[in-house]
């Protein structure tokens, strides 16, 4: 058994390399017989042993009915090979998108699987090389699903080969294939709590100054509430008066912008990036305007979802070559 397992592992490794090299990365892949491999599982090996025992019994007792049931079982064995194969064949995979995440988390990749009508592939196991496996039954003609993969470091994460395998329906054979989908997810640095890197200009720094700044914001007036505004801005009093949802506007534009600067942080590069990431998140949550300075790269002070994304993206890709 040990030898068989070693052989199997080596064979699977070889198949993986071959399949991934032979077929280029693509957005969508249809599984055909060219790329599906099939071998008996351990249970399949057990079944073959059972067939041999049955045949021995048939021969030794010269019993034709035992021969018959042996041959029937052998027939089922072969037919189940075809079933297992066709459980995988004909499935079309389409890469949808990768969901961004922070380093150390699991990056989600969304796929769409569809298959020809008239069949219902069951118990398909999908797994990226470094990812968590997912078992699915494709009951509908097309199905979206999200696969997760460990994101160890910041930058673009390409999940590598995706392995699809199935042992359905009898578990005697395993059919598997490797596909290389054009998917990537942006991995931001892992947020690391710490002191606020000194803001531009004045001697104010750290938490205390922030608190103060919040308190000195001038109320400038009311504006119609738009989706996307913070709930904290809602003027509940006017809502109670029946004026609809109004958002309070503060004159914080006038307050000095905060600059997050890589140079100001302590620690090695990754730690500094992590700290900056933390503050990008924190300031976005507080709806503060901030700018980002990563060496020569400068992101002017701004506020909002897009700005947050831009800042995180710069942090993720800093020093990772011209992929930004």
């Amino acid at each position, binding site marked *: 058994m040990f030898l068989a397992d070693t052989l199997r592992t080596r064979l699977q490794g070889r198949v993986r390399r071959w399949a991934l090299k032979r077929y280029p990365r*693509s*957005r*969508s892949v249809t599984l055909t017989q060219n790329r599906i491999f099939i071998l008996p599982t*351990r*249970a399949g090996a*057990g*079944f073959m042993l*059972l067939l041999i*025992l*049955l045949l*021995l*019994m*048939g*021969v*030794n*007792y*010269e*019993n*034709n*009915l*035992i*021969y*018959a*049931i*042996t*041959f*029937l*079982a*052998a*027939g*089922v064995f*072969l*037919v*189940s090979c*075809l*079933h297992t194969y*066709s459980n995988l064949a*004909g499935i079309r995979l389409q890469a949808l998108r990768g969901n961004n995440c922070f380093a150390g988390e699991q990056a989600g990749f969304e796929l769409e699987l569809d298959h*020809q*009508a*008239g*069949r219902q592939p*069951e*118990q398909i196991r999908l797994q990226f090389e470094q990812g968590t496996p997912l*078992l699915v*039954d494709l009951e509908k003609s097309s199905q979206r699903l999200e696969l997760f993969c460990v994101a160890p470091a910041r930058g673009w994460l390409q999940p590598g080969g995706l392995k699809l395998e199935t*042992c*359905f*329906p*009898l*578990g005697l054979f395993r059919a598997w294939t490797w596909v290389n989908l054009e998917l990537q997810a942006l991995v931001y640095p892992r947020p690391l709590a710490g002191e606020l890197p000194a803001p531009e200009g004045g001697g104010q720094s750290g938490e205390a100054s922030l608190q103060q700044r919040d308190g000195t914001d001038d109320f400038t007036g009311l504006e119609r509430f738009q989706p996307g505004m913070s709930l904290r801005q809602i003027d509940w009093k006017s809502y109670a008066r029946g004026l609809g949802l109004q958002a309070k506007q503060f004159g914080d534009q006038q307050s000095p912008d905060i600059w997050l600067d890589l140079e100001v942080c302590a620690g090695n590069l990754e730690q500094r990036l992590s700290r900056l990431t933390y503050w990008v998140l924190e300031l976005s949550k507080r709806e503060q305007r901030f700018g980002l300075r990563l060496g020569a790269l400068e992101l002017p002070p701004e506020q909002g979802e897009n700005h947050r994304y831009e800042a995180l993206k710069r942090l993720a890709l800093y020093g990772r070559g011209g992929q930004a």
Partner: protein
Amino acid sequence: MNRVQISRSAVILQLATFIAVLLPHLSWLPIWIPLLALAMVGVRLMIHTGRWPFPHWLIKLVLIAASSVGLIISFGGNAGPEAMVALLVLGLALKLIEIYHRRDALILLFVSLFVLATVFLFHESVWVAAYVLLVVWLLLAALCAIHQRPGRTAWLPPFKRAFALLLPALPLMLVLFLLFPRLEPFWSVEISSPRATTGLSDSMSPGDVSDLALSDALAFRVSFDNDQPPVPVQRYWRALVLSQFDGRSWHQASPDQRNRLREEKLITETEPQGYEIVMEPSGMPWLMALDLPVAQAQGQRMTPFRTLVSSAPLDRRTQYRLESVQDYQLQPLLTQQEQQHYLQLPQQGNDRSRALARQWQQDSDGQPERFVRQLMNHFNREFEYTLSPGVLGRDGIDQFLFQTRRGYCEHFAGASVFLLRSAGIPARVVTGYQGGEWNPYENYLQLRQYDAHAWTEVWLEGQGWVRLDPTAAVAPERIESSAVQYFQQRGDTAFSGGRGFRLQADWARQLQQRYEAFNFAWHRWVLNYQSQQTDLLKDWLGGLDYWRMILALMLPATAVVAAVIGWQLRQRLKGVRRDPFERRLQRLQAVLGQQFEERQPSQSMTGWLRALALQWPEQRARLEQLARLDEQQRYARDADQQLRRQMLPLLDQLLRAARERR
């Protein structure tokens, strides 16, 4: 992957499979094993419904120890197939209470399949085979069920899937069954113990054969090479020659005496006829042969007086081929020693019979032929052929010849040989079967125990051993038809009483014959296929080379694979064709792709439609509507079908517009 928990319905299917596998073994298993097995099923059900926890390992240990002790008590040191199967059944029963993971279930099902196959060591009928086929289906369904999602509990899908697996496997099985060479056993195994059987014994005393006449159990079946059975009066099936009389019973010659006899010389006068006999298990070594066999078959021995003996008692149904001749001369010359052997009589007893023989000898001037005629006439005039001849005491032959004058074939045969020997004419008793019922559906002759018969052979100068059947003189109809018909016509109560209900109507008889024909075919073509295989394959393939065999194996296997793939392709095409929406969408893609731009694989349907809307302003409104609906449809959860229905007319209109544009 084998540590996966299995679904609840899969557990129930496992239990059902186990019970189904156990059922045919109930006939012979010691009663405590099925009881224990049922208890285990009950325990598993209690666990299943959550009332009991999985048992502690100590309980399991106690169970294992107890059943080992039970096995030793029930089977002792006898390690036959029974002990093996009982062990496996017990193992399965104990495994039941711990099925939880897929791995446990796999072991249970694999061993169940093996135990299911062992059913055929004990039962071989068509019905059991059909039952086993159904159980295989159930077993496959259980195997499918353990590999489906644990949350699935529907009953039908595993059965459907198992059916789809089983159906294409059947032709494969047939091909393998026909072509796979039947090997000699690798080591000798103990066949299950013989059942109590009825049949001829190696001695004959008054009442022995008539006992057999009360049984309608099957004795043997014969099929002839030219499908033509001999005429009824020629259907004498020879089993034993009895030459030693002790005053009451007739016995075979002892081994010593047999060694002193020469093998009797056979001069054939016609072409031999080939036939095949299928004998039911008798527990005795002697074999039937049509009077008179030319040579023995493999594994058989020919005695000096041309009867056949098997090397081992017949514990199972046995099939063999023979050739026989009907016109022959057997042993035209007898040595002094042989003459004496066939004239042996006890010193005393049956004095009146001896006196009668002496008187007839004088009447016939010492001519054996005249003596024989006298004997037959005597029987014909004053004797009655019956199954209830009454009890005979000392000097049975005297009693029979002068007082009761009623007898069955063994009385007539015994008395004839006694009289002939008393008159110095060498004679002997032959036992076997006579007659047989022809089954026109499968073309074979069927002999039952009530066809058992005893007759005599008398040695005449210049002619050798001649068959002489005194029963034919008393009751010629018995020889021409059969014992059943003879006694039924005469309303013999002893006969109909012993046999219970018997089908009388014509249609019922036909039905029975058809059923028996079917059973015979089953035996010949399935249970005993090895004896047909060589001829059959030669016939079909025109020879038996390796390449012919391989070709014959490959062709159907390829055909089956092609059929399965073809069927799946068809399903796939049908799936596409069936859905009018998908069909139209594809056509639209093809038509518009030709006229404007192809849809790129990376492009969504919606995106592509929007891009087209810019290039084809006349249909812009429709294209955009379609794009919107398509988008909705793709992200909708349930309104799928309704949206599609809205899209259908749009698709049609666009297709028409595209065609007009061309």
